[in-house]
């Protein structure tokens, strides 16, 4: 049995409240879904900001593998290789709630 890929996930500052300020989190996973699940295990609460209740990527959040949007790859099933870097990129509006 092969080991899961060790990858890094880049955390945007609006979500760093869940990671104690960390901008990068190291996780293991064979694909993007695995990696995000591992992130959620390490940092409770963050996964709900990224995935909806059906486990799908929220529409206002993009996840990039390197420079490619995973929506244009295989989505959450996109396979990961050792040392890949994922970036969570949420839509940003502004600071004032209405």
């Amino acid at each position, binding site marked *: 049995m092969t080991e899961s890929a060790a990858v890094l996930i880049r955390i945007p500052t609006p979500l760093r409240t869940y990671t104690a300020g960390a901008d990068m989190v190291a996780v293991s996973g064979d694909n993007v879904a695995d990696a995000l699940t591992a992130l959620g295990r390490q940092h409770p609460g963050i996964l709900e900001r990224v995935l909806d209740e059906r486990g799908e990527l929220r*529409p206002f959040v993009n996840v990039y593998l390197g420079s490619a949007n995973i929506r244009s790859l295989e989505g959450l099933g996109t396979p990961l290789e050792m040392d890949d870097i994922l970036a969570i990129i949420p839509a940003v509006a502004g600071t004032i709630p209405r």
Partner: protein
Amino acid sequence: MTDEQLLRYSRHILLDALGIEGQEKLLSAHALVVGAGGLGSPAALYLAAAGVGRLTLADGDTVDFTNLQRQILHTVDRVGTAKAESGRTALRAINPEVTVTPLCERLSGSQLDALVGSADVVLDCTDNFATRHAINRACVRHRKPLVSGAAIRFDGQVSVYDLRRDDSPCYHCLFPEGEEAEEIRCAVMGVFAPLTGMVGAMQAAEALKLVAGIGESLIGRLLLIDALTMQWRTVRFKKDAGCSICGQKNR
């Protein structure tokens, strides 16, 4: 161009890529700046200083004391006045040649549509997703270039949606409208003051380039700034052929 204009804009005219021809394009342009807050302040200041002939500045809010940390159009003595009016005062002080039209309301519906239709370039400097998507829809409808900026905490984003071009993605291609889109924004507050200046200044730069027809814009690229680590990155994105706003069958 008058002698005074040749002098005022001489440092632009000296730029080979811009020159007198480019400056004249700026002087005859109409920019719509939606939002006169953290992003709209630097964006409008640079557009006015650079000589964009007509600026429409729209914002439905009044200046609050807490705005002054970053919204550099406004001053202590204008707390309580409409931001669009306060902005006009600041822009006039820098460049009285520019015609500034302040609109003291949150743009929507047919008014937004008509204003976008009359503009050469639109700058989205707003603070909410509903307006962002409304501006995008109007820009798609009228095929206008849209320069979008956003900032929260230490994260900034800038991109260009040049909807004059068939191959350009729109804002909805990148961030589809969803009912839960407010969650991340409302969950956190606060923004690093100079980050709004960086993002707004870049919006002005992209708008000026689009109007003058020079350089390479951020079409299909999202510029991401992490001001805490001062890392700048860009990610690429494509037009979504099935986009409900700009997809082929919707044009």
